[in-house]
């Protein structure tokens, strides 16, 4: 729990009625775009092949329209992943080149809603799965775009699965339509573990929650019981049933172990997104990309399919 949240409530209760707002117009004239990387190497039973989205940062425009989006993705880069002495090049694949079913599958796998994506873009994918997926091994990323070179590295850590799942009544007032989900893990005592989780309601994309990462500081090496809240979709308001699963639904839980740099990136990014308010300070997102922004992250995951008790 972030303590400042409590103070936001106080300040809202006290000052909410006496404030007023005014939009600020930004000057983006001195803005220089930077390359943005989002790339994952995943080990799991149903992992998507290693892929990379290469975009550019954009000025703080008042409207992010199709022309802005179409210029966002960077094409023609040489993207390679080094494992030991071997170099594996990723293929550039554009959505418009793919059959609609595969296009849809790709979008779901990279966390996008196929119905809301209205532009064509290209990603760099290890289409033929040539890159060996190994634990605790250094993967080095190298991207060459014209005269620019971008570098990063990551590892895939050991996996610590969820032992048990169970559902229980929601706390507070009786609610026959929803249940809350619990899980239990046996944390590994010999290392610091960093976890990330995603959820999907019935027929929905698997998405991370607003806070999706945590470490094992409080329960290192212990048999740990915890709640797994249903992730809120982008823009979804917090309501009385937020975090709960509808009874009878078939849901998915994706559970991952990630390394420290990968954790730091999501931890700073997720806190940065919530840093809105009079008393908060900015958080600079801590990526692991040299000469760019973003994340090159290894992860070992498992996706569980569960049926919520009636």
């Amino acid at each position, binding site marked *: *729990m*972030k*303590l*400042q949240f*409590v*103070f936001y*409530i*106080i300040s809202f*209760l006290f000052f909410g009625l*006496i*404030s*007023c707002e*005014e*939009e*600020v117009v*930004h000057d983006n004239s001195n*803005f220089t*775009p*930077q390359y*943005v990387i989002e790339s994952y190497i995943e080990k799991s039973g149903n992992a998507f092949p290693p892929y990379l989205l290469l*975009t*550019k*940062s*954009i*000025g*703080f425009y008042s*409207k*992010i329209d*199709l022309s802005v*989006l179409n210029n*966002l993705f960077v094409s023609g880069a040489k993207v390679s992943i080094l494992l030991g002495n071997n170099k594996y090049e990723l293929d550039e694949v554009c959505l418009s080149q793919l059959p609609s079913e595969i296009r849809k599958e790709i979008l779901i796998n990279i*966390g*996008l*809603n196929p119905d*809301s994506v209205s*532009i064509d873009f290209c990603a760099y994918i290890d289409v033929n799965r040539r890159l060996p997926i190994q634990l605790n091994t250094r993967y080095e990323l190298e991207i060459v775009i014209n005269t620019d070179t971008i570098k990063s590295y990551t590892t895939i850590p050991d996996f610590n699965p969820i032992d048990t799942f169970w559902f229980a009544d929601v*706390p*507070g*007032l009786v609610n026959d339509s929803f249940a809350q989900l619990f899980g239990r893990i046996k944390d590994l005592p010999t290392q610091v573990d960093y976890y990330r989780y995603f959820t999907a309601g019935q027929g929905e994309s698997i998405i*991370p929650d607003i806070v999706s990462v945590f470490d094992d*500081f*409080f*329960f290192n090496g212990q048999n740990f*019981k915890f709640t797994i809240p249903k992730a809120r979709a*982008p823009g979804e308001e917090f309501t009385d049933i937020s975090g709960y699963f509808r009874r009878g639904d078939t849901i998915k839980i994706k559970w991952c172990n990630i390394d420290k740099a990968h954790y*730091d990136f999501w931890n*700073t*990014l997720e*806190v*940065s997104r919530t840093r809105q308010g*009079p*008393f908060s*300070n*900015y*958080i*600079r*997102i*801590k990526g692991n990309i040299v000469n760019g922004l*973003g*994340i090159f992250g290894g992860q070992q995951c498992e996706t569980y399919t569960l049926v919520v008790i009636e």
Partner: protein
Amino acid sequence: MKFYTTLIFLCLAEVIHTQKLFTLNGYVNEMGSGESLIGVNIFLKSNPTKGSTTNSYGFYSLTLPEGEYDIVYSYIGYTNVEKKIILTHNQSLNINLNSGITLEEIVISSEDIKKNVQSNEMGTQELNIETVRKLPALFGEVDIIKSLQLLPGISSASEGATGLYVRGGGPDQNLVLLDEAIVYNTGHLLGFFSVFNSDAIKNTKLIKGSMPAEYGGRISSVIDVQMKEGNMENYTIEGGVGLISSRLTIQGPIAKNKSSFIISGRRTYVLDLAQPFIKNTDFAGTNYYFYDLNSKVNYRLSPRDRIYISTYFGRDVFKFSNTERDFSVRLPYGNATATFRWNHLINNNIFSNLSLLYNNYNFNLGADQEVFSVSVKSGIKDFSAKGDIDYYPNTQHHIKTGFRYTYHILTPNLVNASNGEVDFSTKLEPKYGHESEVYILDDWKIRSKLGLNYGIRFSTFTQVGPYTRSTDSVIYKSGEAVKTYVIPEPRLVFNYGLNQNQSIKGGVNLSGQYIHLVSNSGTTFPTDIWVPSTEKVRPQIGIQYAIGYFRNLMDNAIEFSIETYYKTLMNQLDYRESYVENFSSDVETEFVRGNGQAFGLELFVAKKRGKLNGWIGYTLSRTERWFDEIENGRVFPAVYDRPHDISIVTNYEINKKWQLSVSFTYATGRRFTPIKSLFIIDSKPNIEYGPRNSDRLKDYHRMDLSLIYSNKNVKKKRFHSSWAFSIYNLYNRKNPFFSYTDIDNDVFSGNATAKQINVSLFTLIPSISWNFNWNTK
């Protein structure tokens, strides 16, 4: 160092060789209440440069050659008293001054009007509580700390906040004392209201410049707040009812002219009033309030001995409850202080005080949902002993010496949590430290035109066990020294009088600070943790150089000063880049160390007398910081770097019943870190920030007004009351308080928008409060 030692010995030698003298001493009190008066000027009518002032307990001592003298007791806002003294032996004389002319005076400096020019002080202001009460106040809540923000060199953290940034220093660099006990958190409700209840306060002294050697432990300023002692002569009940709080103070004699007491309380009730509406919702039980309770008793054991016991206890209490989700939060936090003081007159010209002090700031948070629970505790607790001796060998010297010892217990964020099966804890240990100081200073009037206040303070801090060093797991037992720091702190102020009405003053002082507060927000927060100097965290050191020109005009009706300063700040602390609060590590591992500098020019013009009075203050300043580990050592402006800062305060006495006050403030916009760009990750836009503090909010300005109707000039009435009408932000200026970004998350729709929105908090706010006073005489 050698220079200062030599200087002290030279001075003492000069004292010893003075001819045989007789001493006149005593206390100066307020007529009608018996309250001791601080800073009263006592001087020879025939030679006003020869004299003394009362100390913090109202005591004075004048040592003069045998002779006949006309002694003047002078205190602004009070009628002067003259006494003819034939000094052929040591004498004691207590004086009562009558506050008959308060309404016509603005009491910005509770000292003789020429003191601006003639004293060996600079960068010092005193605010009498009567002055503070006249000023317009947010929600009608009279606030000492916010009144200080109207003086040059002082700026606030943000709109309506009580945090102080003095001459470019951080909010933790102010030594805030309440009857000598340190107050670590001076704000209620996130700092919008100060913890000082004006009804219980007698006097506030701010030292922003050359700190005398008697003060230490902070590197920017001293805010020395004195509580009232309690009416020695009759019982009074006073109080007030305002929009958000009410106050009640009872004081009176326990044994007439020997012992007295004062109890003063204040509590807010905005959400109490809303309880009937909250009661039937899912949020039943949700509430917020704060309160303060001050008390003090004093007892005159003998003509030579007095004791004072004063306490303060204040809390903010927040409760949030949601029955829909079976979720509740409880959050109490606040300060407690206690002071025991024993004044003893060792002989006619040596006054001593021994103080035992306790202060405790603690923060607690508890949250529950079903079987899950979490609690967080942090705080700082001090046990101190302090001794001071005032020695008045003659009218040229006032020598002061003393010591202070403090045992600090600093509790980091101790987190305990439970999931109904297993209990979890951060297992962080409190940190302990011994802080000790000794000092000696001499306030020396070398000649009628030349004065010097010089001294030195030696401070040490030792971090002690129990402690386990994180790097090599070495365990230190309880009381075992881990790390010791020693800082010699020389202080010097000179005063050269060009004539009776003009002087040039200059000073240099070095101070050390061993206890630190590092905030990760735009202002200080109750959750911010005080941390001690340790192996990893070095003491902060500040060196300030200042020079100024001081002048009184129009028969001392107008006081003018211009001061410049340059300050270097070493071992400044900040959080490392990309720091995110967490409870899993010792917070000091998240700090980075750097340096800073601040420089500026301050103009101050005050009109003290007449129906129309007030002051104008202007500050031109810059404040910068640099850290090797933040933006590769780039020098960046501090968040409170505001080059231009103007305050204009006017009071006008319309007639004996109506009084009008208007204040205007203008300051360059507050610094913030701008958004540089957006980048898409996880199909959502994210913010990349530009260089730290490289942009500003728009300039801040506002005008406040207060109108006080009072019937207290109606004589022979025991009950007096007044109405205070106040308007905050008279012309409804929308000063930005903070910005937030509003970005569509569904960027791939092609219709997303990104906006930055400034929020103004306090637009035009009228308020009304009713105050009363009932007196048995």
